[in-house]
């Protein structure tokens, strides 16, 4: 089980770095809360509760983008990515470890954002929360790989939203559907399908993104 040992070590490293530096998480937190407040002013009076649920997903996707833009910063700034790639372990473990860390960050943010949303707008159903968790998996899996691609490019943070948003659209469809539809089961199943397909794809192809 050395593979999972490697993954755990990498994830632990990222969590520890964040615990010490405390730069990304507070920024994401403040960003999501500010966004929710902006949405209050963006929604006209008499707007649907349903519209607000949709906007929650916008907030979550953009907050995730904020976090993902910084995801590979420690490796890039310290030149550590080459070292990790050369290490005698499966390169997909790098992706899995980083995704796991980003998942934890996003989960912590949602722990605050979802109750805040319930406070500002309307309470979320259990299916909505389940949808958020499933979508998180997709966001982290795909986002981490795309962030690695963006790190390889000249334009870095500029290109990550362009790469991420088209792939995030099915997640938003699934998430909003789970929150507002009368048949949330189908949307949750769809989110599960997305997660499965893209997690496998990311796992298999990460090696090619970081190596020559």
């Amino acid at each position: 089980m050395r593979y999972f040992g490697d993954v755990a070590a990498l994830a632990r490293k990222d969590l520890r770095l964040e615990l010490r530096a405390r730069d990304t998480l507070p920024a994401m937190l403040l960003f999501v809360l500010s966004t929710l407040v902006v949405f209050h002013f963006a929604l006209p009076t008499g707007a649907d509760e349903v519209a607000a649920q949709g906007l929650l997903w916008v907030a979550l996707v953009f907050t995730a983008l904020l976090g993902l833009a910084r995801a590979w910063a420690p490796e890039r700034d310290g030149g550590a990515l080459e070292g990790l790639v050369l290490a005698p372990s499966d390169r997909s473990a790098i992706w899995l470890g980083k995704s796991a860390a980003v998942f934890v960050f996003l989960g912590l943010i949602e722990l605050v954002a979802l109750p805040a949303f319930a406070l500002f707008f309307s309470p979320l159903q259990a299916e909505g929360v389940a949808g958020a968790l499933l979508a998180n998996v997709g966001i982290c899996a795909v986002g981490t790989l795309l962030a690695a691609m963006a790190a390889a490019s000249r334009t870095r943070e500029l290109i990550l939203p362009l790469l991420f948003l088209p792939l995030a659209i099915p997640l938003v469809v699934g998430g909003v559907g789970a929150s507002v539809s009368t048949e949330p089961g189908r949307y949750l199943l769809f989110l599960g399908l997305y997660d499965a397909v893209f997690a496998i794809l990311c796992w298999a192809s990460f090696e090619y993104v970081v190596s020559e």
Partner: protein
Amino acid sequence: MLAALSAALVGLAIVLSFWVAPEDADQGISQKIFYFHVPIALTAYACFGWGAWKALRLLWKGGDRHDLESYVAIHQGTIFGALTLATGSIWAKASWGHWWVWDSNQLVLFLVLFLFYSAYFMLRFSIEEGPRRANVSAVYALFGVALIPVSFFAIRLAEDFIHPTTFTRDGPQMTGTMFLAFCVSWVAITLVAYTLYRVELLGKRLDGNLRELREALS
């Protein structure tokens, strides 16, 4: 020769669509655009698929030619994708009175794919030329092809009752001559796409050779 054949087939397709096939009962003459819109859309998908196949070959076997072939295929696919959106928009205006309807999930999700592949070019040209760029582009192309069925399921999931479903499980909802016109049109458009693909590939290869020669001489 390929170009001549493509031109001839497109001509045939136009004749068949406008003069031979009967008018649609509900939509009248505006339905004729379907003979071009759907084949263009299918060809765009085929181009993306071919690009992804070449990308897979690149990652699997390696070699510069697969990278170039993948890129050119995706380039063609994006062009045909833009055409799909344009023709779909014209059809929407003719059928439903609006240039764009968000309710039409198929058009919307094609827009998503178009955005995805536009980002492909931004990604590709922001990385220095070399094996890294080839690898990253290839992985992204594979993601695109995975996005297609996922988006398809998202269509089926979100209730869609505006975009006419021409191919259901019972087979094509068209009469004989309409189906013939459709098939001819499909072959014609596919041939046009293939011709353009070959032309662009040749052009890019010549560019590459010329650059190498210049570097060798200087």
